[in-house]
């Protein structure tokens, strides 16, 4: 590719020079604001109040977005913003998993705020270039690239007509274009989407990193909720950041020795225990494939079942053979967990890159499960190819998997047929049809364009066409708030049903993954126990998104003595590591209680943000029935012993004297009632009304009684 010619075609729309500034205690104390309507570029100060209440990362994103939009703003209005923020800890290299960014915007999938946690180098590089966040409003008239040069102190907006959209080629072109020389490529990070993000609500963002060992561009994904669709709606082709050379203490932390000590301790754990625990260094989160299958949690055929006899064809050992592990497999420097695995020299068999040998990042567990068993595919080559195309086209693998699974079940039920799909035979296991579907998404045509808007919009479309019963589509359509479920079967874990459907952004497992605690360990049998778990874990896990941290080093390896602690599920030593590191970076003096309180403030802010946008109430926390129980007779019969036992032992019924319809109805009534009781318990624990509204007393208690929040909740509390 002729990078010089591509660059020569650029038209400079705006150049903005800035002082490089300094980073103190993890903050640059300013954000970068860009408005593409008129090419405004300016710096905004970060107040002490903002740092205290919103901390950074997702918290900064939420605060900035709240101020930018009104209750009627839609995702594709110019007022909507795309915000990327690391956090105060992001960019240290002495502890694993410390290079994350949080992307925040109004989602085309949910019409409320989406936040997506992503690796790659952009977040830390943005901070090293002088900004705690980038906030982009407005829409360009033609495709632009926004470039931040943290070496020269310059921001440019450039019309960029000729670069290809697909991320694996675009990121390579821009890395070469904006690097001063070949060595400088490691200092360049690119945020881009892909051709399908021009058309599909499930469009995501790729965050690049230059892999020095492989001399290749790799990418990590801000997958959930359509952030890539927002980027392309603003006609942004890419955001590029060129950072000063990385050094040991870019954050100017208060106590580097404390951070190093915790880092060494953690690295020792990884060296000693990873091989006998999760094998993250060898296979990443794909180690979960056979585990989820064994525990009946692996979504199979649109979450109908939880395991499959062909799991051996796509289990972790298969992926281990495909991956080529290197110490550079982290998505940020210094991560010894290094779980971002890579399949090299994969030969593409379909689409515009047919015949190319490419590098595929992943698949991680969610991608392998969603692109595999959930759509009935047990061919690792198909999974790799779908993963490659999802990434380069800019599509969320999780949503793609879940929506394709839904379409396939609809096809099996006769809601869809060949005529309605334009010739696609969307049967479970038809990997070639799934590949054609993805290519249609990239071209914005055919059934791919319909499917690419997600399960919720498909349900509406099919119902409007009179193709199927809206109730059955509601029951099997695995979405909540408009976002597709991630890849775990929650039927037998009431707590996880809440962990999915009570989330602020929609059913992503990054708030709470409670299936083992609930379903297997039976540790949280009462509603109060479940409510406590659904308070602590979402608050604790929110904290990673405030800091610029990865969740995986928290509990994908555990210290030798973890079993001897009072609460091993919380991994107390690692919690203490995080408290220590935060204090060491910022000079604060928080403890583990204040850590939860920091999250609680932001969590409640986001809940009220949802209410402000017309969601965020009890009705919005409803789940599709398949998340809770068997929708079809086939599904009931497949686990009849389990369901019959519940009817007999819990409800005192005699399943032998009941028809299958009666048994399914009784099971449904019971399980739906259980979920309502869970909502009651969790709302009470969280300091919310039975309608799901945070009370003013609770907001005062946590120090988040901001006038703009009171203004939103007060009318609802007075009803």
């Amino acid at each position, binding site marked *: 590719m002729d990078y010089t010619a591509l660059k020569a075609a650029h038209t400079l729309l705006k150049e903005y020079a800035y002082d490089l500034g300094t980073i103190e205690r993890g903050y640059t104390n300013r954000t970068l604001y860009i408005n593409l309507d008129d090419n405004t570029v300016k710096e905004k100060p970060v107040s002490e109040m903002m740092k205290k209440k919103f901390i950074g990362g997702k918290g900064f994103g939420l605060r900035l977005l709240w101020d930018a939009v009104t209750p009627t703003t839609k995702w594709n209005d110019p007022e909507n913003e795309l915000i990327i923020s690391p956090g105060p800890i992001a960019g240290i290299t002495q502890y694993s998993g410390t290079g994350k960014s949080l992307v925040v915007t109004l989602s085309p999938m949910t019409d409320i705020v989406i936040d997506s946690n992503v690796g790659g180098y952009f977040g830390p590089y943005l901070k090293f270039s002088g900004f705690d966040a980038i906030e982009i409003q407005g829409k360009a008239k033609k495709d632009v690239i926004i470039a931040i040069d943290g070496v020269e102190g310059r921001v440019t907006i450039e019309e960029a007509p000729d670069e290809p959209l697909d991320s694996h080629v675009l990121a390579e072109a821009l890395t070469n274009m904006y690097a001063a020389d070949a060595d400088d490529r490691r200092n360049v990070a690119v945020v881009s989407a892909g051709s399908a993000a021009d058309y599909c609500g499930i469009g995501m963002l790729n965050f690049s990193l230059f892999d020095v060992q492989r001399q290749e561009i790799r990418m990590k994904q801000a997958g959930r909720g359509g952030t890539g669709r927002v980027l392309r709606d603003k006609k942004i082709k890419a955001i590029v950041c060129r950072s000063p050379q990385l050094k040991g203490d870019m954050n100017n932390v208060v106590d580097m020795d404390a951070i190093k000590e915790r880092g060494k301790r953690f690295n020792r754990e990884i060296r000693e225990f990873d091989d006998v625990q999760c094998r993250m260094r060898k296979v990443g989160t794909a180690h979960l494939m056979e585990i989820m299958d064994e525990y009946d949690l692996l979504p199979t055929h649109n979450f109908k079942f939880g395991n499959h006899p062909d799991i051996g064809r796509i289990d972790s050992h298969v992926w281990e053979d495909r991956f080529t592990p290197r110490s550079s497999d982290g998505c940020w420097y210094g991560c010894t967990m290094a779980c971002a695995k890579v399949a090299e020299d994969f030969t593409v068999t379909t689409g515009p890159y047919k015949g190319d040998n490419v590098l595929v990042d992943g698949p991680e567990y969610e991608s392998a499960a969603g692109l595999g068993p959930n759509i009935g595919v047990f061919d690792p080559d198909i999974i790799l190819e779908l993963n490659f195309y999802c990434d380069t086209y800019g599509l969320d693998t999780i949503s793609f998997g879940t929506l394709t699974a839904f379409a396939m079940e609809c096809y099996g039920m006769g809601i869809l047929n060949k005529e309605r799909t334009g010739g696609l035979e969307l049967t479970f296991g038809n990997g070639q049809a799934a590949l054609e579907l993805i290519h249609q998404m990239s071209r914005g045509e055919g059934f791919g364009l319909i499917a690419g808007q997600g399960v919720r919009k498909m349900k509406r479309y099919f119902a409007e066409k009179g193709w199927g019963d809206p109730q059955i589509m509601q029951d099997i359509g695995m979405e909540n708030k408009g976002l597709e479920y991630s890849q775990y079967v929650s039927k037998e874990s009431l707590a996880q049903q809440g962990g999915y459907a009570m989330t602020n952004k929609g059913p992503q497992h990054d708030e709470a993954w409670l299936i083992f605690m609930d379903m297997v360990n039976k540790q949280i049998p009462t509603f109060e126990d479940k409510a406590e778990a659904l308070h602590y874990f979402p608050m604790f896990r929110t904290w990673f998104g405030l800091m610029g941290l990865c969740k995986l080093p928290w509990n994908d390896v555990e210290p030798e003595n973890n*079993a001897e602690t009072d609460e091993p599920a919380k991994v107390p030593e690692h919690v203490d590591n995080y408290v220590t590191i935060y204090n060491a970076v910022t000079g604060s003096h928080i403890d583990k209680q204040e850590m939860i309180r920091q999250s609680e403030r932001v969590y409640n802010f986001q809940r009220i943000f949802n209410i402000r946008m017309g969601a965020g109430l009890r009705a919005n926390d409803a789940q599709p029935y398949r998340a809770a129980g068997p929708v079809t007779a086939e599904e009931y019969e497949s686990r009849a012993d389990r369901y019959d036992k519940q009817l007999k032992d819990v409800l005192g019924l005699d399943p032998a004297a009941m028809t299958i319809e009666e048994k399914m109805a009784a099971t449904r009534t019971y399980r739906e009632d259980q979920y309502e009781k869970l909502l009651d318990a969790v709302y009470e624990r969280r300091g919310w009304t039975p309608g799901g509204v945070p009370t003013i007393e609770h907001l005062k208690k946590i120090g988040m009684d901001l006038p703009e929040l009171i203004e939103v909740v007060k009318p609802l509390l007075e009803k």
Partner: protein
Amino acid sequence: MSGTITVNRETMEWRPGMTVADILEERRYTFKMLVIRVNGTLIKKDRWPDAAVPEGADVQVLHLMSGG
């Protein structure tokens, strides 16, 4: 001779000489990050193969979280 034990609040058949490892095998608990307590006493991993489980024991096999 046989009796019962409780494993994660569920009744399970017990047999003489039963070990922690036997329980894991029978319950197909294949996950690697487990914390096991028998009658409240922590059983470390290196003892699972030969740690005898008495009749009537209350066994907790806590699966920790990972992934995602």
